[in-house]
């Protein structure tokens, strides 16, 4: 394995061309939808941009929304690079949040320096085991991980509902409030608010921005190093690129599939507990999976694809999708177009990014580092071997 590796800048730019073209294509389709819905697309873009980045608080809210997306997207990068399609971010976030808040509430008397690391660890482990379960089923029983993770999302949501209506229910809230939620965490367990001193101004001082952003960015950087500068990452990517070649090279394919899902699940689990410790200060839901996660488990997939399945790309991509979500609320208020437009746009972006691989393949037939790894279905059809080679 090469110790360092730099891509020539031109090919790096080319790597992101299909992504940007996908965005343009999704924008055009979305504009068409808005016109059909009797709304001015330019007005919608203006409202969204204003809502997402218009002032200090808007930017902070965008970053706040981006935090769980970034965690999940970083994990998705690992999973997809390992050839595993993890759609279970929602369930893994829930698993992490449930385990993390249990630890947090149990240690309520301790100081923050004890609670926060232990809660994060619990969240990571719970999410990792939950994701690892799908990886195990894929590795040893060949169970399609897309289907299993989607089912596990629903299972996790119901398990959370059960716990929030029973063992974890806030004792002071029992029977009072229709929203199932846990008790509030101790103040010592809260992730500190994040703000910057710029000259005499305290940027983001009066917003909800918290240290989860820093943890997320560090995680993305560490993951980048893990994937491209360590043997662990090399093995995961080798399995993702070509399972058979990896096996011949002596790499344990099953174990690396599980490891990729373990890490992806763990990162999503961190997203869940960070959401609790940094923002909500308790675990609450409306009963659906998205009630707690805000669909970050799905948005993380979109952000990861959009960021070229590279943790560094996932950072701006997550902020972009966080901005879409925050901006959509303003668009909904001003133009009366439901914020679920964003879900539809996310779907379009996924379709366009994945479809654009066709043009990438066509343009650079010899280049091997296409954005998508060789998942089961991207395998190219092997040319028929010459006749004589079959008789050897």
């Amino acid at each position, binding site marked *: 394995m090469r110790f360092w590796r730099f891509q020539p800048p031109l090919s790096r730019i080319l790597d992101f061309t299909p992504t940007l073209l996908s965005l343009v294509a999704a924008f055009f389709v979305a504009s068409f939808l808005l016109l059909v819905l009797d709304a001015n697309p330019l007005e919608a873009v203006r409202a969204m941009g204003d809502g997402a980045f218009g002032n200090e608080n808007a930017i902070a809210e965008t970053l706040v929304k981006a935090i769980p997306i970034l965690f999940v997207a970083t994990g998705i990068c690992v999973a997809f690079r390992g050839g595993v399609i993890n759609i279970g971010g929602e369930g893994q976030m829930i698993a992490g949040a449930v385990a993390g808040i249990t630890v947090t509430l149990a240690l309520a008397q301790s100081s923050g320096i004890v609670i926060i690391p232990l809660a994060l660890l619990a969240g990571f482990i719970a999410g990792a085991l939950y994701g690892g379960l799908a990886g195990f089923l894929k590795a040893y029983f060949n169970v399609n991980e897309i289907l299993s993770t989607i089912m596990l999302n629903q299972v996790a949501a119901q398990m959370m509902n059960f716990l929030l209506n029973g063992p974890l229910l806030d004792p002071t809230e029992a029977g009072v409030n229709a929203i199932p939620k846990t008790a509030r965490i101790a103040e010592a367990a809260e992730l500190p608010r994040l703000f910057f001193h710029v000259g005499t101004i305290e940027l983001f001082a009066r917003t909800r921005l918290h240290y989860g952003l820093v943890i997320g960015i560090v995680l993305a950087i560490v993951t980048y190093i893990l994937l491209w500068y360590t043997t662990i990452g090399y093995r995961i990517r080798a399995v993702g690129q070509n399972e058979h070649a990896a096996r011949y090279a002596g790499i344990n394919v099953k174990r690396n599939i599980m490891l990729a899902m373990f890490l992806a699940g763990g990162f999503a689990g961190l997203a869940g507990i960070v959401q609790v410790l940094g923002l909500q200060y308790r675990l609450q839901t409306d009963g659906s999976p998205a009630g707690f996660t805000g669909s970050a488990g799905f948005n993380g997939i979109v952000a990861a694809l959009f960021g070229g399945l590279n943790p560094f790309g996932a950072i701006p991509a997550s902020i972009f999708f966080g901005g879409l979500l925050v901006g959509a609320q303003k668009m909904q208020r001003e133009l009366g177009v439901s914020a679920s437009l964003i879900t539809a746009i996310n779907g379009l972006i996924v379709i366009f990014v994945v479809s654009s691989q066709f043009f990438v393949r066509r343009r650079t037939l010899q280049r091997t580092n296409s954005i998508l790894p060789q998942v089961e*279905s991207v395998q190219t059809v092997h040319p028929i071997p010459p006749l004589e080679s079959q008789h050897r």
Partner: protein
Amino acid sequence: MIDDLFTASVFAATIRLATPYIFAALGETFSQRSGVLNLGVDGIMLMGAFFSFYVVYRTDSLFLGVLAALLIGGLMGLVIAFISVTLKAEQGISGIGVYLFGLGMSELLFQKLIGTPQSVAGFPRLNFPPLSDIQFLGIGEIFFSHNLLVYVAFALVPISAFILNKTTFGLMIRAAGQNPEAADAMGINVARVRYITVILGGMMSGLAGASLSIALLKVFQQNLTSGLGFIAVALVYFGRWRPYGVLIGALLFSFVNAVQLQVSAIGLDIPSEFAVMAPYVITIIALVFASKRSEKPTALTKPFERGG
């Protein structure tokens, strides 16, 4: 207690609730047998459910409602076929894209065009006197008290099996899914076969959505299907890519659903969350058992490149 759980009405509900599973899973069977894994089923179902509901809500015409579901389903099938056959995109993730699009779009249109929860009269319950009045073992209620779409769904099972196994077109579908190179060499247009099956699958997914919104539930709301389309995809694995196997799986799942409804109706002391969770857990277990089998179409999820 057990007697309350297995009443005639539970079995009647089993038959009724199997409808969306059967439509969606049969459609998916066609596309998977031809080699295309369409994971956008749930998204298509949501769009089919919304469009049929909206048309019926506006026009009171059940015929137009079903037509709308078939059209939007076929259209989305066409898009999926273009993505996975022509552009040869990765089928797993692109299916999730289609799902997200359907999820967001159906909700968006619902908010814009209807806004508040409404219900429609929908497909009426049919009566077949004197069959519907048979009290013995509740046969009248179980088999002869359903709406038209229920009977259409069950009728499609032998029809699909016949098409797949006994017709030339069925042979072409299986060849495209089993060995596209050989099929191509035999003069079969693999791409065209796959286009047809995926569009057909889309239409049936749309119909599955309609069966929810204008026949079974008679309402539309956000995420009406709550993942039913993904279970339908799993049912195809469970049913070994055979229509009758799919039927058995559909009945198993609708039975679980029916019991789940009954459990909450008679107030059994089981937390409702576990009842809701059951179908998803069973799906995972079913997938584990289905995975050991080798009937899977060999070329499933593999794009076909001519002259490769």
